[in-house]
C-alpha cells in the first residue's frame, strides 16, 4: 500500500512540475522581452522610439528608431479587419446558432474550423495572387499590396475566432428568455435583436477582443500582402508595415547585440503587451459573465 501511495504522490508532484512550466514559459517570454527590449533604451530615448520619427535602424551614419508609423500600420490593418470581421462574424454566429436548421449547422461549424486551420502563409499568398490584383483593378492602383489588402486578409484570419466565441456566447443564453419573448408575441427576429443579443452582449465583446488579439499578432499575412513601406500611411491605399512584419523581416539579418537587435526586441515587447492587454480584457469579460451566470 505504501508503495502505491508513493507512486500516486510521485506522479502528482512530477505532473505539477509541467504545470509550473506553463507559468515559467509565460514568465520567461516576458522576462526575455523585457531583458533584451529594455536594453534598446540604453541608446534610444523612449520618447523617440514611440515617435513618428523614421524607422531606419540600418542607416550607416544616423540610424533612427521611430515605431510610430509601424504602430499606425498595425492599428490601421487591425481596425480595418475588425470593421469587416465583427459584423460578418457575429452575423454568421447568430445564423448558425439561432436560425440554421441542424443539418446546416452541422456543415457550417466544420467549415469555420477548416477556415481556422488555413495557415497564415497560405492566406498571405492568396493576398498576393488574388486580393492584390483584384484591388489594383478595382481602384486603379499600380499594385494592390496595401493596408486594405492586409485588413481583408486579417479579417479572414480573425473570423473563425469571432464566430466560434460568439456562437458559444449565444448558446449560453437561457432558453427560457427566448420562450418568454415568443410567448409575448415577438417573432424570431425581434427575439434575436431585443432579447438574445442584449443577453450575450459581453460574450460577443469577448469574441471581438479575441479576434482583435489574433489580428494584432498575425505576422505572415501582413508581411506578404501589405507592401511593407516604413513611411507613415495616409490611408488604406498606402502600403504599411506592421510591428510583426518588421520583426520578421529584420531579425534574421541583424547582428546580435547591436542597438538595432535590441530595438526589435523592444518592438516585440510592445506587441506582447498589446496582445496581453487585449486578451486579459477578453478574459475579464468572460469570467464576469461566468460569475453572473452561476
Amino acid at each position, binding site marked *: 500500500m505504501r508503495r502505491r501511495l508513493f*507512486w500516486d504522490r510521485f506522479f502528482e508532484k512530477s505532473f505539477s512540475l509541467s504545470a509550473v512550466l*506553463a507559468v515559467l514559459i509565460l514568465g520567461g517570454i516576458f522576462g526575455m522581452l523585457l531583458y533584451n527590449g529594455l536594453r534598446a533604451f540604453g541608446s534610444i530615448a523612449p520618447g523617440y522610439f514611440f515617435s513618428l520619427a523614421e524607422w531606419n535602424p540600418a542607416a550607416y551614419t544616423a540610424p533612427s528608431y521611430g515605431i510610430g508609423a509601424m504602430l499606425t500600420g498595425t492599428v490601421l490593418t487591425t481596425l480595418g479587419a475588425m470593421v469587416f470581421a465583427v459584423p460578418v462574424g457575429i452575423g454568421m454566429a447568430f445564423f448558425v446558432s439561432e436560425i440554421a436548421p441542424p443539418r446546416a449547422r452541422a456543415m457550417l461549424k466544420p467549415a469555420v474550423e477548416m477556415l481556422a486551420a488555413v495557415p497564415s502563409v497560405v492566406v498571405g499568398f*492568396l493576398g498576393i495572387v488574388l486580393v492584390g490584383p483584384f484591388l489594383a483593378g478595382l481602384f486603379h492602383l499600380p499594385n494592390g499590396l496595401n493596408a486594405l489588402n492586409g485588413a481583408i486578409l486579417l479579417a479572414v484570419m480573425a473570423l473563425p475566432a469571432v464566430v466560434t466565441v460568439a456562437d458559444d456566447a449565444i448558446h449560453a443564453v437561457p432558453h427560457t428568455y427566448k420562450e418568454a419573448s415568443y410567448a409575448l408575441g415577438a417573432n424570431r427576429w425581434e427575439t434575436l435583436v431585443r432579447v438574445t443579443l442584449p443577453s450575450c452582449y459581453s460574450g460577443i465583446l469577448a469574441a471581438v477582443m479575441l479576434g482583435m488579439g489574433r489580428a494584432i499578432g498575425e505576422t505572415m499575412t501582413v508581411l506578404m500582402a501589405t507592401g511593407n513601406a516604413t513611411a507613415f500611411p495616409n490611408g488604406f491605399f498606402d502600403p504599411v508595415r506592421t510591428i510583426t512584419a518588421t520583426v520578421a523581416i529584420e531579425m534574421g539579418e541583424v547582428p546580435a547585440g547591436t542597438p538595432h537587435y535590441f530595438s526589435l526586441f523592444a518592438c516585440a515587447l510592445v506587441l506582447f503587451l498589446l496582445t496581453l492587454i487585449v486578451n486579459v480584457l477578453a478574459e475579464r469579460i468572460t469570467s464576469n459573465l461566468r460569475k453572473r451566470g452561476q
Partner: protein
Amino acid sequence: MMAKKHIQLFGIASLVTCAAIVVGFLGLILFDLAWKGGIVLNWEFLVRYPKKGMTEGGIFPAVFGTAVVTLLATALAAPLGIACAVWLQEYAPDTPLTRLVRASIRNLAGVPSIVYGLFGLAVFVEGMGMGMSVLASGCTLALLTLPSVITTTEEALRNVPRLLREGALALGATRWETIRAIVLPAAVPGILTGIILALSRAAGETAPILFTGVAFYSRYLPASVFDEFMALPYHLYILSTQHHDPVAVRPLAYGTALVLLALVLMLNSVAFVVRARHR
C-alpha cells in the same frame, strides 16, 4: 404586422449573407488553390528536389523538413501538455498557484507566433547553443502548441464521467491508478484529437521557425537534429516574395500552397473523424 414580417425577412437574409460570405472565403481559397495548384501537382513534384534556383523541380526537402520538425514538436509538447492537463484536472487543489497556471495557459494561447520565434531565438538558438536547427525549431513549435494540447486534453478529461472515477476510488485504487486504468483510456480519443490538431497547427506555422532553423535552400536533407531544414510554409513564403522571379515560379508556389493546405486539412479531418466516432 406586414412591416414586422418584412423586417424579419430582411434581418434573417442579412444573417444568411454573413454565413455565405464566410463559407465563400473558404470556397474561394479551396477552389483557387485546387485549380491552379492541381496543375503542377504530381508524384514527381512531391519527391524531387528543387532545381535551377528553385525555378524547376519539386519540394521534397520542404515536405520532409516540415514532417520532421512537426513530429518533433508534437513529441515534445504532447507528454508535457498531457501531464499538465492531468494535474490540473485530476490533482490540482483550488489554490492561487493553480489559478496562476490556468491564467498563464490562457495567455500563452494569445501570444503572437512571432514572439515565440524571438523566444526560441534568444533561448534555444543562442542561450542553449542549439544554433539554427531542427531541434531549436521543434522546441519553439512545441511551446507554441503546448497551450492547445493542454486545453483539449483537459476537456477530454472533463468529459470522463465522475462516476467512473468514484467507482475506481471506492474499490481502493489510488488516484494515480484511477487515472492510469480508468480516466486516461476513456479520454484517449479526445486527447488524440488535440494532438492531431497540434500537429496541424505546427505544420502551418512560419513565424516561429524563421529565426530558429528554417533554411532558404539546402541541398541535403537534415542529417541530424542540429542541422537546418527546409519547410513547406517558408518555401511558399520564399517562392512568392523572396524569389528573384516570383511570377515565373508562381505555379510552383501554387503547388506548394496546395500541398501545405492539403496536409493541414487532412490532419484536421482525421481529428474530426476521431472526435465524431467517439461521441
